[in-house]
């Protein structure tokens, strides 16, 4: 047998309009880096904020245009075997997720940009590399250093997130995973206050994240060994072609790849990082992560589950069912014991991830659309909730302990009222987006999941009842208790933060009362291209 000559180079077909949103976001991130390099310090914050928001809005417009350019792109059809080797799939779920990510990203960035009258963003340290409490730190704060790098970092993360549900092969998925994760590791460590906690969070997130990436990569290798290709189309075909043996490779590979993705959504037992990172990271970053990372990762899980490994679902679905049940139960039960607002929201986000997984397991188009709706509904609510957390202060730092929120309804009825409304949304009370979202995933699960789906939904309902206690307790503290401490104050947010919180809350309300247009959009966007 002689050496096979490498196939002739075949130029990739690229539909530039279809990938324009991605190009805009990544391009803006690069421009942001150049701004950091060449623009005087005092003007950076404003310019960076402008670039970020403008590029995201532009990207949203581009996404609207890209809906006319759906299909596979960034690759070619192999002439001899007629395999479709495309790296990106611009389809309904991908564009829906991109649009949601871009809009939630705008809100996230507006909250990150909050200055409260200072030179730079209030939430971020003056110099991330200095030792907490060291003279260097004090000097850099005095010198008016700012970490406006957070804006390009966030844009890179958003770009990676947009890529995540769009990629059509395992290697691309891995790259997207890394592109979205690496900036988040850095952002987590940049908190201005309680910096040791923040750095610990960053390191923990990085180490565990790297670990899960390794799992993902190992799974990719095994799946490649099984199918001889990393493209989802080939993978799906290889599974349905029953003459292929080597099921051990398939099952192990699928598990490992899922581990990598479930880590990102914070599903139990891969959730251990969530409370620590959510607590330690700067609060605006936490809100951004909770909304966008989760959305992007669920987009990727959907594509993997419905396009790549759909034909092998019976091999892995039992494992994911167990994960979903554990996630709901652990998230709900552990949130009961929390005394810190950010940790409470972290465990609540775990429980919500479990509810979304119930929708993923419905295995049909309604499952897809319910998941799409859920992550958007949850994302806008959680960004607003973390935005509110940034406003409540004691001695300059954020007052995240629950006892510090006592009696807030008396002193600051608007802030407390908004928070209470968002809590009701997380609890899934009707006339909030949380209820419609929960209904959507539960209905999908019962509708197509059969007996298993019904059992999952019953467990979900029980867990919802448990989490209601948690959210109601926050309301009890805010409205039914006397303030424990007079020194807790609420800062007056800038226009940007106010806008972000208001929009998040309004969408939470609107999706609860008139959800049909977004449901309709999610329905129409629930078809994957193969």
């Amino acid at each position, binding site marked *: *047998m*002689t*050496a*096979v000559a490498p196939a*002739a*180079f075949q*130029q990739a077909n690229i539909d530039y309009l279809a990938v324009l949103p991605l190009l805009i976001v990544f391009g803006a991130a*690069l421009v942001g*880096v*150049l701004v*950091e*390099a*060449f623009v005087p310090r005092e003007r950076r914050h404003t310019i960076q904020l402008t670039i970020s928001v403008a590029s995201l809005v532009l990207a949203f417009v581009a996404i609207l245009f890209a809906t006319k350019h759906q299909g596979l792109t960034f690759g070619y059809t192999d002439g001899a075997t007629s395999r479709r080797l495309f790296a990106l799939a611009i389809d309904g779920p991908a564009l829906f997720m991109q649009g949601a990510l871009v809009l939630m990203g705008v809100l996230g960035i507006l909250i990150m940009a909050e200055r409260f009258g200072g030179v730079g963003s209030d939430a971020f340290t003056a110099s991330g*590399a200095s030792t907490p409490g060291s003279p260097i730190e004090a000097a850099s704060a005095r010198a008016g250093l700012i970490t406006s790098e957070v804006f390009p970092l966030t844009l890179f993360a958003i770009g990676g997130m947009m890529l995540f549900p769009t990629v059509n092969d395992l290697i691309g998925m891995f790259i997207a995973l890394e592109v979205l994760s690496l900036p988040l590791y850095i952002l987590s460590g940049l908190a201005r206050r309680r910096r040791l906690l923040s750095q610990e969070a960053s390191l923990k997130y990085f180490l565990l994240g790297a670990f899960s990436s390794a799992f993902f990569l190992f799974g990719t290798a095994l799946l490649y060994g099984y199918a001889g290709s990393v493209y989802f189309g080939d993978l799906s075909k290889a599974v349905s072609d029953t003459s292929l043996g080597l099921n051990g490779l398939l099952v192990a590979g699928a598990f490992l790849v899922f581990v990598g993705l479930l880590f990102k959504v914070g599903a139990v037992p891969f959730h251990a990082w969530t409370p620590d990172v959510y607590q330690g990271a700067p609060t605006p970053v936490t809100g951004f992560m909770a909304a966008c990372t989760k959305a992007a990762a669920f987009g990727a899980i959907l594509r993997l589950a419905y396009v790549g490994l759909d034909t092998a679902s019976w091999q892995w679905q039992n494992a994911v069912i167990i994960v979903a049940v554990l996630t709901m139960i652990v998230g709900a039960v552990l949130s009961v014991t929390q005394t810190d607002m950010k940790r409470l929201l972290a465990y609540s986000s775990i429980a919500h991830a479990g509810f979304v997984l119930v929708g993923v397991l419905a295995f049909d188009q309604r499952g897809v659309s319910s998941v799409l709706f859920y992550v958007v509904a949850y994302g806008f609510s959680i960004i607003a909730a973390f935005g509110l957390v940034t406003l409540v202060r004691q001695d300059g730092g954020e007052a995240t302990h629950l006892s510090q929120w006592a009696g807030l309804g008396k002193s600051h009825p608007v802030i407390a009222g908004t928070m209470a409304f968002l809590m009701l949304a997380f609890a899934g009370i009707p006339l909030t987006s949380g209820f419609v979202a929960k209904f959507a995933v539960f209905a999908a699960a019962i509708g197509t999941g059969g007996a298993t789906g019904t059992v999952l939904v019953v467990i979900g309902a029980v867990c919802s009842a448990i989490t209601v206690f948690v959210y109601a307790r926050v309301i009890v503290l805010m409205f039914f208790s006397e303030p424990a401490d007079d020194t807790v104050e609420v800062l007056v947010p800038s226009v940007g933060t106010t806008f972000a919180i208001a929009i998040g809350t309004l969408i939470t309300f609107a999706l609860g009362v008139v959800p049909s247009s977004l449901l309709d959009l999610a329905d129409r966007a629930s078809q994957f291209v193969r």
Partner: protein
Amino acid sequence: MSAPYVPVLFMLALGFGFAALSVFTSLVVGPKRYNRAKLEAYECGIQPTPQAAGGGRVPIKYYLTAMLFIVFDIESVFLYPFAVAFNKLGLFALVEMVLFILTVFVAYAYVWRRGGLDWD
């Protein structure tokens, strides 16, 4: 049966042979003057101090340099195959490559302007 792998095996053997030969040659012809530093388990020619200079902290400069090295290393990793197949790839690949290099240069500019290349 595995004709394509014969050259690889040959290459492997050559590599091992060269390494073994070098070690053997230095063993035979090299001067032997032992001192404390040379007898350390981790031998780098410097006798280690109980604490690193600067109060036990390893200066971050090394890491920065190493990271920058990796960045440019990766760049050349991509440049090699491109250079080999440059003729076949045509204009499209050239543009792609220029864009890639530009992107790396953006990072380079950032590092340069923000003092990443200053040793002190």
